């Protein structure tokens, strides 16, 4: 009996295989180096039968002339080849790939570590570097070591203010930053089936923070319904008994609001333990928590009130922004005193639209709090959307259950 990774890759764990890649994508950060490597390899046209995508999200719009020049070259390449190109403002690459592109059972490679996000669809989605991406552009294929898997067995439902982000921080805290290195996480159990696609995307997104190569959910009725809305008829993936390297049992009812404290994603504390910590900035967005459901939850919590600290809200894609405008969610957020940024990665990687200064403290809904990541000397606490809302209103780290 096989794990989902073994089924999709068509071989047993620890074997090395060459596989055609169904979808390959890169962004303005990694695409520049990939293009250079592809040319050096002698690339002139793209490999066959693979869907190729380039999305501008990391520093979009460009922050200075150097960035603009690098992007100009990549943009010209994307437009002149058979790439499907998404320019500035379209949104974050992983989010765009989740909006009716990636399907269950596909092999997906993104030139970004958070490409694991797409595992939420039951696709084998993983991140690679620029030169690996260049070789995929060249041949349409790449090599894989079929991973062993860790089972994350979920039961129950969320209670109180806990949400998917808190569950994600729970498992990263338990596994540690390298607890699943060279492995896949497979999210199974009745608790997994109760989760929405947006919640699954959060859980898959953080899997790389435990070192995992991928974070997979089996496609089920929830996946089928979501993709039906995007115009696809797909079949659920039947799970079968299989052997996991290790199994982590988590009851959603036990999950409480958490934060990851500087400078490690696996150093987790209950929000309450940090209550009262002064904040200079709150950031809601990214490939972790910038979806419509996140913005709607945030809006519900801040509606009719004013934030007490500078708060930046960035929708993960243009379609999310458009929906938030249409439903009034955006107006509630703006009325509460928040600043809205262009759909994309925003300040997550410390480039623009909310970089931290020396000694500044930020509560962010992103997925990394490495030293200096959002700016030299800045400190990053990672938490849920509800924790971000409660903290934005008070100007200090605040449990959403206390609010």
């Amino acid at each position, binding site marked *: 009996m096989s794990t989902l990774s073994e089924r999709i890759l068509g071989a047993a764990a620890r074997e*090395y295989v060459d596989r055609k890649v169904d979808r390959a994508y890169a962004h303005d*950060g*990694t695409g*520049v*180096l990939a293009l*250079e*490597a592809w040319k*050096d*390899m*002698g690339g002139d046209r793209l490999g066959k039968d693979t869907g190729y995508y380039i999305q501008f999200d990391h*520093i979009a719009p460009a922050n*200075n002339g*150097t*960035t603009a020049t*690098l992007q100009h070259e990549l943009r010209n390449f994307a437009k002149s080849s058979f790439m499907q190109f998404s320019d500035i403002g379209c949104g974050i690459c992983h989010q765009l790939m989740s909006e009716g592109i990636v399907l269950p059972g596909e092999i997906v490679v993104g*030139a*970004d*570590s958070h490409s694991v996000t797409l595992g939420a669809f039951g696709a084998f989605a993983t*991140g*690679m*570097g*620029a*030169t*690996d991406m*260049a*070789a995929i552009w*060249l*041949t349409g294929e790449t*090599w894989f*070591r079929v991973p062993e898997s860790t089972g994350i067995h979920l039961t129950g439902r969320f209670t109180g203010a806990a949400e998917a982000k808190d569950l994600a921080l729970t498992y990263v805290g338990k596994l540690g*930053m*390298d607890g699943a*290195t*060279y492995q896949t996480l497979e999210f199974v159990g009745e608790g997994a089936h109760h989760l929405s696609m947006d919640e699954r995307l959060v859980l898959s997104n953080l899997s790389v923070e435990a*070192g995992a*190569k991928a974070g997979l959910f089996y496609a089920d009725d929830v996946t089928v319904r979501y993709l039906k809305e995007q115009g696809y008829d797909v079949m659920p993936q039947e799970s079968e008994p299989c052997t996991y390297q290790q199994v982590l049992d988590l009851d959603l009812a036990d999950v409480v609001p958490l934060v990851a404290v500087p400078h*490690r994603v696996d150093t987790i504390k209950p929000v309450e333990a940090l209550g009262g910590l002064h904040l200079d900035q709150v950031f809601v967005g990214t490939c972790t928590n910038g979806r419509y459901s996140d913005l709607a939850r945030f809006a519900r919590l801040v509606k009719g009130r004013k934030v007490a600290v500078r708060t930046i809200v960035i929708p993960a894609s243009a379609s999310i922004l458009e929906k938030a405008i249409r439903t009034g969610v955006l107006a509630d957020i703006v009325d509460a005193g928040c600043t809205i940024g262009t759909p994309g990665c925003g300040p997550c*990687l*410390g*480039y623009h639209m909310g970089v931290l200064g020396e000694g500044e403290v930020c509560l962010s809904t992103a997925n*990394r709090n*490495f*030293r*200096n*990541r959002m700016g*030299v000397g800045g400190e990053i606490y990672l938490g849920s959307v509800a924790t971000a809302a409660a903290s934005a209103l008070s100007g200090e780290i605040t449990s959403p259950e206390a609010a």
Partner: protein
Amino acid sequence: MKGKGTAVCLPADIDTDVIIAGRYLRTKDRGIWAAHVLEDLDPTLASHLKGAVIVAGKNFGCGSSREQAAIAIREAGVVAVIAPSFARIFFRNAINIGLPLIESDLTCEEGSTVVFDISEGWVETGGKRHPVRLLSPRMREILTAGGLVEYWRAHR
């Protein structure tokens, strides 16, 4: 494939943001990456890495997929990186740009001479030879070619 260098000891969980900070990524100038490698860990380190073998703790290279991390280490003159485990994207990136990685629990002694043979699968220091985990045949081919660009130039 053999090599030799002077040990530089680093802790566990060195992430790619620490290896090369995001603020230095928007360029194609490899000299800039080499000059700022590991700056947030120790600003003096970059100038001491010529001929070095980095001997680090587990999970070296965790975090983002930025290939500039592996390039920065190589361009600074590092001969190889030895660690008990590597984050997998960094692992592929390093081999793809021709930087040898060696999986080993070797205890680091700052300044000692480290000799290694990747084809035979051993590392030697202080007169003692330790076996290491062998790279897959494909990774050895890529590394021997000098990287994935050179590999595909030869195989197309």
